[in-house]
């Protein structure tokens, strides 16, 4: 009974991530890849993503402090961040990445800085949400894998 409840809670939390636009379909793709061989695949990917992208965020941060801004470099970093963000289905982060690159293209330094702040916010927010979600999943046990709607 309790277990069912936690499952339902997980499902709700998960759904809210989609409903609030944090995640997109790509996240479902990852969930579908989860199997006996990699029961925690999604979480592993998310962990990997945050480990790797924090490096990019740092790079971006430093690059944004430079004057004049090297838009090429910024765009390059952001492209990488966008690539991995998009791969885990981090919808909002991806949107910010796209926006940032647009500003890079037009040479809008101010826009870049502003978007980057927004990006960091979304990035951190998603991280917290995902962490909470994965923790719930972990606590609920391995059967939790099946919680996603088919």
């Amino acid at each position, binding site marked *: 009974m309790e277990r069912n409840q936690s499952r339902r809670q997980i499902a709700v939390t998960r759904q809210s991530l989609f409903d609030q636009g944090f995640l997109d379909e790509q996240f479902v*793709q990852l969930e579908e890849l989860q199997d006996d061989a990699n029961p925690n695949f999604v979480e592993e990917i998310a962990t*990997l993503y945050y480990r790797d992208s924090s490096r990019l965020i740092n790079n971006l941060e430093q690059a944004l402090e430079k004057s004049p801004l090297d838009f090429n470099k910024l765009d390059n970093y952001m492209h*990488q961040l966008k690539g*991995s963000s998009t791969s885990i289905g981090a919808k909002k982060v991806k949107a910010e990445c796209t926006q940032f690159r647009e500003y890079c293209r037009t040479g809008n330094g101010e826009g870049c800085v502003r978007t980057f702040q927004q990006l960091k916010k979304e990035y951190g927010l998603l991280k917290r949400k995902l962490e909470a979600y994965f923790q719930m999943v972990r606590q609920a046990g391995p059967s939790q894998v099946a919680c996603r709607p088919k």
Partner: protein
Amino acid sequence: MATSTSGAAWKSGDVVSDQFPAGLRVLVVDDDPTCLMILEKMLRTCLYEVTKCNRAEHALSLLRENKNGFDIVISDVHMPDMNGFKLLEHIGLEMDLPVIMMSADDGKDVVMKGVTHGACDYLIKPVRIEALKNIWQHVVRKKKNEWRELEQSGSVEEGDRSAKPSEDADYSSSANEGNWKSSKKRRDEDEEAEERDDTSTLKKPRVVWSVELHQQFVAAVNQLGIDKAVPKKILELMNVPGLTRENVASHLQKYRLYLRRLSGQHQTSMNNSFINPQEASFGAMTSLNGIDLQTLAVAGQIPAQSLATLQAAGLGRSTAKPGIPLPLVDQRNLFSFENPKLRFGEGQQQQQQHLGTSKPVNLLHGIPTSMEPKQLTSLHQSAQSLGMNMQVNTHGAQNSSLLMQMNQPQSRGQILNDTASSHVPRLPTTQTIVSTGLASGVLGRNGITNNGRGAGYNPVMQNSSMLNFPNGFPLGSASTMSGLPSQGSFQEEVTSEVKGSVSFAASYDIFNDLNQHKSNDWDIQNVGLTFDASQQSNSIPSGSLDLVHQGFSGSQRNMPVRNQSNVGKPMYSIGDIGHGNAQNTSQHLNTLLGDNSIRIKTERNTDVLADNGFFPEQFGQDDLMSALLKQQEGITPAENQFDFDGYSMDNIPV
């Protein structure tokens, strides 16, 4: 080209197997660990065999180490160490695997860039598993196309690879050859600093074209202009110690192929026509195939498939014949193995000389130089493999090299034609036959030039093919039989040339047929030949070289020279054969050259013309030989006679 073997693997059965896409060997390259991990998981879910790699350079070295270890490559576009397009370019050049590019970038220009660089697909990140489930189709498609290409051109790599088994046999066939080979090998080793793992076998050494090296190469080519880039100049521009012209030439060839793939057929028809001859030099047999098919196919005048079928038919026939010691394939292999040398040695030297110093003499020089051990061996090889002993061989060799030359000036096709046509009436004692032959030759040349331009080849070919058959055979036999005066021999040659030249494609068929028919007799005879003859071959070269030189210098004295050489070496060893061929060819050249140079002031043109004449000659000779063969099969007592006969035919009239 490189994937051909793995392709074969797929072709042979895997494609058919129920679990086909399972086990597809995929190399994933992405610097983004998250993407890489997801991709890996997705691909594994598709039951593919996945190798992941986070650096393009590493991927390249993986691919190089294990050329047949992968069926398809998926690569990110943006990577810090190497742009994905660069990687794509390299893979296209070196392995010719299907490559799927992927990027979060969905800009049209980026996607376009991927396509133009030869990517078989472009996936926008995030990559979905649905897209990956389908990627095996690229492998199949590629193999399919490749197979067709192979049939058309006798691909370089394939030849190389499959050459291995038969090589040994060749080596063992005669001690002398062994010597040649080893000396050649030594030379190669000296020359090629970056030689790779091939030292153990007497295989063509390879240079690893690193990214930097390739970039240097591309820069040099760009500086020269792709049409004008010849290996020697590229080599000079690159200025890389240890790199040989051969390396550059082979790379250039691949590069051109690569460019051709990129830029579609029309733009590159010039290039192609240039390329093809080069490929042609890979083997008289296959090269012929290659030439015709490729040039034509490239030019788009002949449906590739029909050609393929032609070839396939040819192949099928040859293999179908029982008791053929060396199936066609083997021959091809031999050739392709050796021909690089041929091509490089002769082809390039000649080429360069031709182009660089536009004297008619160049050609001649080119030949002598090319007669060094290396080339000789190649000649031998070609002789053996082709089974048309001396004449064919040298012709083949030289032809191929000549072909290259021919094609370079192709832009001046008009001139060529002019010279050719002008040549016709001027041939001293040309009899009607000859002139007709020449006319057809002109036709052929037209065809060639047209080919380069991609127009109107077909009609020409067909006509010429019509011409060819009649001309080639009757003429060959007639001239030989009746023992025409010295000019008669000319005619014979000329006609044969004509025939060859006429029917790039058409005579091609003939050629195939002939070969197949011949392959039985010829191979056997050749074997005998090589063994017997090889003994004498070593000592002779220098002399024959001189002879060749002489012959060249004095264009009218060819005949005597040739005679001498013949006399000196009544037994045609392989080496001799080579020489003999050289001589023959030189004579041809001379005659042609002589005529040309006298009448036509533009030396280059004369060269070209000579080349043209030459190239065809091969075909003609083949035909002749086969005809002779058939006639004399019963009569000739010993194996050597065969060559000899073929040869003496030429000599007698002189």
